[in-house]
Every structure is written in C-alpha cells, then in structure tokens.
C-alpha cells in the first residue's frame, strides 16, 4: 500500500463488463481512467454515448454526450462511493479512508496482490456485497464489483492513455 501511495498520476484504458440478471449477455463498455494524487479521478466512456465522470474530493461532475453537466455529491450514491473509494482509495494507498467504508483483506505478494473490500455500513451493504481489487506492484489491473442483487461487474485496466 505504501508503494501505491507514491503514485502521482495514473492513466489507463478500461474495459468494463456488467453481468446483469435480466440481460442475456454482459454489457460491455470501454473508456479511459485517469487518477491524480490525491483525490482526482476521471472516468470517460467511449462511443456515441460518450459521457464522463469527474470526481474531485466528494464532488462528482457528470458530463453527458450533449454537453449538459450535472453536479452531484458522492454521498448521495452508495454505488458511486463504492467505485470511488475502492479505485481511488486503493491507488492513493489511503488506508484510513478505505477502512472507514470497508473491511480490508490483503493477499498475495508485491508483484501480484489481491485486496478484498467488504462494506461496513448498512447503506453501502444494501447495494454492495464486495469488491475485489487485483494489482501488480503499483498498478491496479482489475476491479470486480459484486452487487447485493447478484449483479456483477468487472473492470479490467491496462496502462496508457488513448
């Protein structure tokens, strides 16, 4: 974790697959993520529905394909909290924040580790069962989210920008 805390910026491409019970096949989304120490994350989707989610601190700005913007507080969306804290918190090596929201379980070695996050609060647990983050050294290459409903999403990342 200490190694991770030294990451200043990280850029990556992602592929996200959502397995949803009423869908016969997973939804697949692609895009890019950018992390900047200490608390900035931007997630941008490719394609015609190109939208971006920019988080700084507790503020989220959603920009839709048509340029409309919406400002939201991360607190209002437990699902968002799960994503923000697991990804950003892990990259930032911010144990304190992570432990505020999750029980942590770290496995493996430096070159291939696994971090299991189980939500602490009811609000988060209503929505989320667990998050598994996989990493190699200071790079996070997979975030798997298991929702309480049984729906699941896996985001795999590789370094580099567009």
């Amino acid at each position: 974790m200490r190694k991770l805390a030294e990451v200043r910026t990280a850029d990556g491409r992602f592929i996200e697959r959502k397995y949803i019970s009423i869908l016969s096949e997973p939804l697949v989304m692609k895009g890019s993520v950018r992390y900047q120490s200490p608390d900035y994350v931007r997630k941008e989707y490719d394609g015609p529905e190109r939208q971006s989610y920019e988080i700084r601190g507790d503020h989220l700005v959603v920009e839709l394909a048509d340029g409309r913007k919406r400002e939201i507080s991360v607190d209002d969306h437990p699902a968002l909290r799960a994503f923000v804290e697991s990804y950003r918190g892990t990259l930032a090596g911010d144990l304190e924040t992570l432990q505020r929201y999750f029980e942590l379980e770290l496995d493996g070695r430096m070159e291939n580790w696994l971090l299991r996050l189980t939500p602490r609060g009811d609000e988060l647990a209503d929505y989320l069962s667990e998050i598994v983050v996989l990493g190699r050294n200071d790079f996070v290459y997979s975030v798997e989210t298991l929702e309480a409903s049984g729906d699941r999403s896996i985001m795999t990342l590789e370094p580099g920008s567009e």
Partner: protein
Amino acid sequence: MNSQRLAAILWLAALAAASAWVVTQTSIRSDISSFMPRAKTPVQQLLLTELRAGPVTRITLISIGGASRDALAMQSKAIAARLRASGLFVRVANGEPIVDGAEREQLFAYRYLLSPAVDEGHFSAAALRDALQQRLRELASPLPVFDRPSLALDPTAELRTMLTAWRGSAEPRSYRGVWFDDRGERALLLAHTRVAGFDLNAQEQAQRAVREAAEAAGVAPLALGLSGPGVYAVASRDLIRAETRRLGIAATLVVMLIVLVSYRSLRLLLVGAIPLVSAVVAGVLAVDLVFGAVHGIALAFGVTVIGVAIDYPIHLFSRFSGERSTRKSLASIWPTIRLGVITTAMGYLAMTATDFPGMAQLATFAIAGLLAAAACTRWALLGLLPADCTAGQMWPSADWCARRRRPPAQWGWLLALAGLLSVVYVLGRGETPWQDDMAASSPIPASLMARDRHLHARLGVADTNHVLVIEAANAEAALQASESLAVDLQPLVAAGVITSFDHPARYLPSARTQLARRAILPQPDRLAADLVQAQAGLPFKADAFSPFIAAVSAARTLPPLLLENLQDTALGARVRSALLPVGDGWAALVLLAGVARTEALSRWLAEREQPNLRHLDLRRDTRSLMMDFRQHAFGRALWGLLAMVLVLWLGLRSAKRTIAVLAPGLLAVVIDIAALCMTGQLLSLFHLVSLLLVVGISIDYGLFFSRDDAHQRERARTFHGLVVCALSTVAVFGLLATSELPVLRAIGSTVAIGVSLSFVAALVIARPVRSPGTAGRI
C-alpha cells in the same frame, strides 16, 4: 355596620370571586380570525376558512445555517427523519424523495392508473423499445437510478414519472439531495402540521418538536430559523402576553404615582386601585361570558380601560378637602359621572353588535369595565374611607387651581378653524384614510410577516393570492372538473398570463381518468407480443419482463384509488389540502402561481361562463370584505354617536350645554384624524374604537368643565380633578403608543393625541351653562 361598609365588603367579596373565576376559568385566544369579519356567502366562508385553518396556515418553514454545506445536509436529513417519526406533521419535505415505505408500495401498485404518461400507444412496441433502450443506457451508467431493483416490474419507469410530475416545477436548489437557499448557505425544510394554524397550543408543541429535533441534530439555537403562520400566531400570542403584562404593570405604576403625587395619601392610593381592578375583572368576565373566550387583544385593551377608569375616583378624591363629608362630595359629582359613563357606554353599545367578533369584544370590555369602575366609585369606595377623609397636600395646589383663568372664549373660533382645516385636509388628500388591508387588523407585527416571503417563493409554496374554486356535488366530480380546467389552463401558461398552477387531480386523478387508463392497458398476450418485438436485438433475456406483464395484467382489475384510500399519507395530505368538503358539496382549489396579467385572467374566466367556477383573489376579496365591514362599523359608530347625543340631551335637558359638552370631543376627533394622516398612518378599525374612546373621555371633560359650580373653591376642585384625569390618561395611552404591537400602538397614539386635544378644547369651549333645571346637579 352601616350600609356603606356593607356595600364595600360585598363589592370586595364579589370582586375576589370574579377575579378567582377569571384567573382559573378564562381561556385566552389569540388567533387572527377573531379580527376577521364574518362571512356572508359560502365563498367568503371558504376564503376565511382557508385563511384561518387552510393548509397554508399549517406550513412551518424551517431553515438552518451556521455550518458547512455538508454538515447542514446531514442535519436537514436528521431533522426531517425525527419530525416524520414524531407524528405531529403530515408532511416534512426537505428535498428527499417524498414517498417511501408502505405508501410507495401502494403507489407502485397503482402506477398504471396514476402515471400521467399512460395513454394510447404508451405500450406499443415502438414506445416499449424506446423505454428499454433508455433503461439499457441507465444500466451502463455508473450512476444507478433509484428504481433499478424494480426494473423487471416497471421497465417504463412509471413510478419515476409520477414522482417527477409531483415534484414542484419551482423547487429550490438542492445539494446532497437536500434543499438549500439560493446562496447555498441555509438548508430549507417545509413541514405541514397535522393541526390547523390557529390551534396555538398544538402549534407550540410542533414548534418545540422542531427545536428539539434541530438541537438533537446539532444545530445551534441561533442557527435555526422558524417561520410560517403558526409560528407567527404563537409568537404574536407570546408578544401580546408580554406586552399586556409589561404595559399593564407600567400603566398601573404611572397611575399610582400620579395619584400618590396628587393626593399624598397612601389610603387613597390603595382605595383608588379598586375601581381599576374592578374594571379589568368585569371586562374580562363580561367578554368571557358573552363570547366564551377572551382574545388576547381584548385583554391588552384592558390596559386602556385603566387609563379611563381612574378618572372616576380622581374626580371624587379631588373633592376630599376636609370641608365636607365624603358622602356629600360623592353626591355632588355622581350625577355628572353617571351621565358621562352612561353616554360612553351607549356609544360602545352600537359596536357590540358588529360582525367582527374581535371588535365586539373590545366594545363589550369597554362597557363592562367603565360601568364597573363607575359603580365601584359610587357604591363601594366610601365604605372603605372615614367619613371625613381628607387628601393630603394636593398637587397641583388648590391655590394654583383657583388662580387658573380660562382662555378667552374667542379661542373657540381658532379651534373651530383648526377643525375645519383638518376636515378640508383629510377630504382633500384624495386618498382614503382607511387601511383595508387585513394585515393591518392582524395582531401580528408586520416585521414577522415580511421576514420570509422570499423563502416561501423559493420553496414553491404556492402563492395563494389567486385561487380558482370549483364547486361540485362530490369529490369525484370536483376532481374531474379540476382535470378539465387543467387542460384549459395550459394556454394561459403558454401565453404568460400565469407561470404555473397546481391542482388536486395532479396528485390524484379522478376515478374516471384512472378507469380510462385502465381500459387502455393491453391484454397480456398482446403486451407479450409487443415486448418480443421491442426486445429484438436488445440484450434483455427473453422472459426478463414477465413480472411486468403480470403487473399490467393485475392493474387491469384494480379499483380506482380514491381519497379515502390515502389516509395518513404524504400524497393524501397534498390532495386534501386542495380538495375539501364545502357545505353540501366539495370544492377543488386550483392555485395559480405568478399571475402576471389579472385582466387577461378575468377575461378568460368571463368567457368560460362556468357557474361553478369562482376566482378568489385573496388580496382583493379580503380587501372588499374589510371595506364592507369598515362601512358597516362606521355606520355603527355614527349610530353610537347619535345615541350619545340623545342620552346627553335627555340627561342635560339643555341643547346649549349638550353642544358645549360634545363639541370639544368632535373637534378633537377631527383634528386627531388629520394628525394621524399627517404622520402617514392609515386608519384601521382599532383607530375607530380609539376615537370612540376619545369622544367618551371628552364628554366627561365637557360635563365637568361645563358644571355650574356655585363656589370658586368648588370650581378649583373640579379643575384639579380634570387636570389629574388628563395627566393620567395621556400618560397611560402614551405608554401604549410605545408598544411593539401595531394594535396597541394605534390605540395609544390615537387616544393620547385625542385626549390632549379634548382637554384643551373642553377648557376653551365647555363653559358653565346656566340652565334652570339641572344647574348645580350634573
């Protein structure tokens, strides 16, 4: 024991009993409605019911500040949760979703009958496909929608459509799901109490609950802002209580001081207090017996009676010079006092029969109080004093009083000229000197009223100045009429005549509409077939929406949702606030917001020619109600004046002296009105009552000044009494003029100015008249 002593003891015993009764039994009210006229038509009745107990009176606006936005959002949620659980409020809104729990389940079951989106074609293959594509986009987004868990049951997002439609168009800005003011500095909440705004004890309890909830959420007392009609009503009751106590004590002290300085006798001071106490107790008792309760303002008015009731013992004490027995002193002035008090009571008698309960209370209070004070002076005081009771060294001294010479009679012409100029001034101003705004008769200070108009606007609390009332035989017919009116109002919104409107069918469609929607819900087979078509090429599982097909199918046999089914729900409270039983039928209230062009609205209404539709312009209608009433009250006052003239003439049997006694008061009233107009005051009904008080007091002055006292010494004593009377009356009413309550301020300033003028005018005009019949008696 002589009869005087016996009378005194009986009086004191009766006074003690009456006081005990008043203290333990009298209920005090302070709602504004006593100071509203009674309604004559059903629509006026509705108007007044709305003003008194309608949903608008149940609103409590809560604002909290003094912390960071995040902290305020948390506090707002905590306060709202606690207030919702308290059971004191039908609705607590702070921006969070308005329905939850069992109510949400009920509404969810009824979504296909209630959602405004359900129409012909809503379940066509094309429309369903659009809906499913939209749902897919939502699934892909990292921001889940709140109804995601019910996707299989509600793929067309009907519940969301309903909730969105119910949210006001003019909602305040929101942060973390909680309402904030424009600057984002204060979180706003809106709570509707279960009880009406005039139920002050219950309102106070609700406000205490808000304060406790705020404290529990960590809000500093000073950071909490509370407003709303119920809050004002409680605040004004507290203010009336505090002011009555403060001014009552101050007035009593001032009067006691004046009596003490004037007569230098502790005994006279104590005995002189008895008529004052008698007056107040009799006033409260009479009002309570006649009206069943005493309004706080009538109680506060009791303070003014102190200023007048003291006159009777003063006239008596001024004659205690040791030369004659107390009995003879009393006998020499009683006929004058008697005529004065009967005349004044007659003036008020005409006011007791008004349609304005509050005004009738004031008049009743005055009559009972003055009669009691006079009777006490006549029958109870002598028994408490030695037969040769003498005042101490009097002030002003007897010599000073004896040396006073009246100003030349020609000054009367100057006064008459001043009176004439005043009439010309008041009539020549071109604008009415009358205040017909209901707020002016309200005991609530204007500063409180103005404080949160802005907040009201921000929270989308409908501007209730313009209301369309649809009367119908039953609730269903009223809802149907409300629906068709809503359709017809759209062009007015488009034309900018109004900005928006709110009506009960927006929340609860009529059974007819619900049945019509039910009728177009597709058969299961048909829906299944269209769904297959809609799903083609989309990644949904083939049987993903069978729960949806079952739900639509179930809705096809649902009985319509009625008002009765909405007990104790947030939605029910909303509907009930605009759909109410009136007389034998029901009325739907359509609230119009942002009425920009009243004439266009009137024209539109005239063209509709719909007899069961009425437009209430609350400001205009209450104004005309007040105007009617003012004319009525003015007529009453004139009748009162006529009665006074008649009584005076019957008592004096001399036209000349009647004029001499009345003229100072009339001049004083005319100049008083001009003086009030010059200081920018508009006259309210309280001024009218005060002016009647001025006439009453000035008649006393006129009677005493025009007494044909035989001796110089006697004249000096009369003069002494008059000076002390005028001093004490002006002092008491001058004190009232400093009150924070607009009503007391109006009464105080009017009477203080009027009495000063009366004294001067009576001094000049009311000269002794020698008339064979009554000389030396009255």
